[in-house]
């Protein structure tokens, strides 16, 4: 099974092979024999090249459904990365994703306490669009898109879940 490992703007190809009871990881073109066991749900013990590493894996929500985001906790710290099926990545490239680029989604469950923009407003990347409250803290949510506010999906006082659509900003046509 081949995947493209994506961390930030960097990516590399990795391969994971299970055959005849032997598991192999291909990394940077080098094959490593690997002994991997899921000892508890989401907790893996991995022996590779003599090293023993325990990995706690959490699949994370990703804005792009074709890319699987992961968080991992290891003794030596935390890692975040995404794995993309190279076949799907091709499909995605030809199909034209990125339509959701201007959609601000809720990063947490919480309550919308203040809307700072109205439909039709012109906003800049990094501008705060609304304020949400969760756990006694107010949090400013900012847009990553410069453009015009097209839709406001929630009202002040609304309680929303993680991933809820909040505000859509449309970038000007290139």
């Amino acid at each position, binding site marked *: *099974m081949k*995947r493209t*490992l994506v*961390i930030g703007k960097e990516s590399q190809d*990795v391969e*994971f092979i*299970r055959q005849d009871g032997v598991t192999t*990881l291909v*990394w940077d073109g080098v094959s*490593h024999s*690997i002994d*991997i066991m*899921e000892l*508890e*749900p*989401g*907790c*893996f013990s*991995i022996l*590779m090249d003599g*090293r023993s*590493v325990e*990995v*706690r*894996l*959490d*699949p994370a929500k990703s804005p792009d459904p074709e890319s*699987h985001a*992961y968080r*991992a*906790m*290891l*003794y*030596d*710290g*935390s*890692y*975040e*990365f995404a*794995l993309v099926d190279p076949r799907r990545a091709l499909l995605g490239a030809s199909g034209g994703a990125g339509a959701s680029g201007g959609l601000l989604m809720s*990063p*947490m*469950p*919480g*309550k919308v306490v203040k809307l700072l923009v109205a439909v039709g407003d012109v906003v800049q990347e990094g501008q705060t669009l609304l304020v949400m409250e*969760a*756990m*006694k*803290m107010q*949090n400013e949510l900012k847009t990553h898109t410069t453009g015009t506010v097209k839709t406001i999906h929630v009202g002040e006082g609304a309680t929303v879940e*993680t991933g809820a659509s909040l505000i859509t900003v449309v970038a000007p046509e290139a």
Partner: protein
Amino acid sequence: MPVTKILIANRGEIACRVIRTCREMGIPTVAVYSEADRGALHVRMADEAYFIGPAAARESYLVVEKIIDVCKRSGADAVHPGYGFLSENAGAARAFAAEGITFIGPRPESIESMGSKTAARVVAIAAGCPVVPGIQETMADEALLAASLKIGFPVMLKAAMGGGGKGMRLVHKPEEFTSSLARARGEALSSFGDDSVYVEKAIVQPRHIEIQIFGDTHGNHVYLHERECSVQRRHQKVIEEAPSPHVTPEMRKAMGEAALKVAKAVDYVGAGTVEFLADIDRNFYFLELNTRLQVEHPVTEWITGLDLVKWQIQVARGEKLPMTQEEIPLNGWAIECRVYAEDPDKNFMPSPGRITYLRTPSGRNVRDDGGVYEGAEVPMFYDPMISKLSTWGPTRIEAVERMRAALGEYRIGGIRHNIAFHEALMEHEPFRTGALHTGMLDEPFWKKKGQGPDLKFAVAAALLHELETEHRRAAQPAVNGDGKPDAWKQWGRFNRL
């Protein structure tokens, strides 16, 4: 005052902490819970539990009448308020007393006299406890400017009713004064409904050092040494320790005695904390007296070996303090990290949700005060504390190394948390050397770690997960032309699994 059954008017880790001591003392406990907390750990641990209303604290945990009603129904004759919620509410303390219920905390008068920072300052000055040079009164704009020029810039503007850093402004020079004051007043008004502001000398690179005090109903007072809480983010404590790397034995004695002057001045009963700012020359200045058990009390318990909740209960029963000042131990060093459901990579955004996996560190000299369990919800309605992890060592660096190793054992699944942030702090040179000040985290030292040497292992686990997801998907119901699953095909696949 009898204390034979205790209602804990709180939730989360502090409610569980209090229950543990009650169990040791053989005192039955009563929990209260809101709609969001039926499955919370404190409900599971208590001997009794009563529902008190909606998730919002102001409709449940903060409603004194509901707490009193549960006392009556359960026969609880005492209330432990924990911290936050009703703990520093003089009105609540009076209401409990009126019903014959013992409030495990100071007298209402002590709470009131320490409720406003300016009033507390007046008490401290009268008691002979040093305060930050400044004018203890709130005044009009021009008078504040004149006072600031007299004290000398830099100065700090502070909301009289404030707390948590809101309504506070550092003013470096006279030219900035007018605009800073306007912003301070605005914040004070919106946060506390009162725009009164006063001015103080600004301490550059100040350290937050506090003294744990205790008083009994017989007029005895002792101090249980200091804690340093200078590692703060947005004026919120992140890491606490005891003792302080800045404090010498002489300074400890001087601070302890200054704290007791304030305690005696208000005839303080129970556990309290006198907060000071200290400067680089070891001058220290009274800030306020917190009239409750602090979040960070475990570090004091580590270095003294004492149980502060037990002392609170003993004092509430009218017993004398079990030790004199000379008998209070001071052994080794303790560090505490506050483990929060928040995302350090996204500006510490809160991260409520379900904890899908939990493994807490254990072994020698590690203590975890948690309020959650695997499968528990961290509700969005309350503060994001998951647990307080504390460690002890004979020396500061041993406590730090123990903490670093313990953080590595901590595993939390399902929500974002700040373990990695604490791990980075344990390796942060200014922290390791003890060169602390309250602004030390303002310059962003924290950056998400890039590819470390063990990335290969993390990716291998994810690849196995991808492979198994693909296999599971291949075994999913196939779909007919009409969009409905083909039952026979489904059955065949089901059988193969």
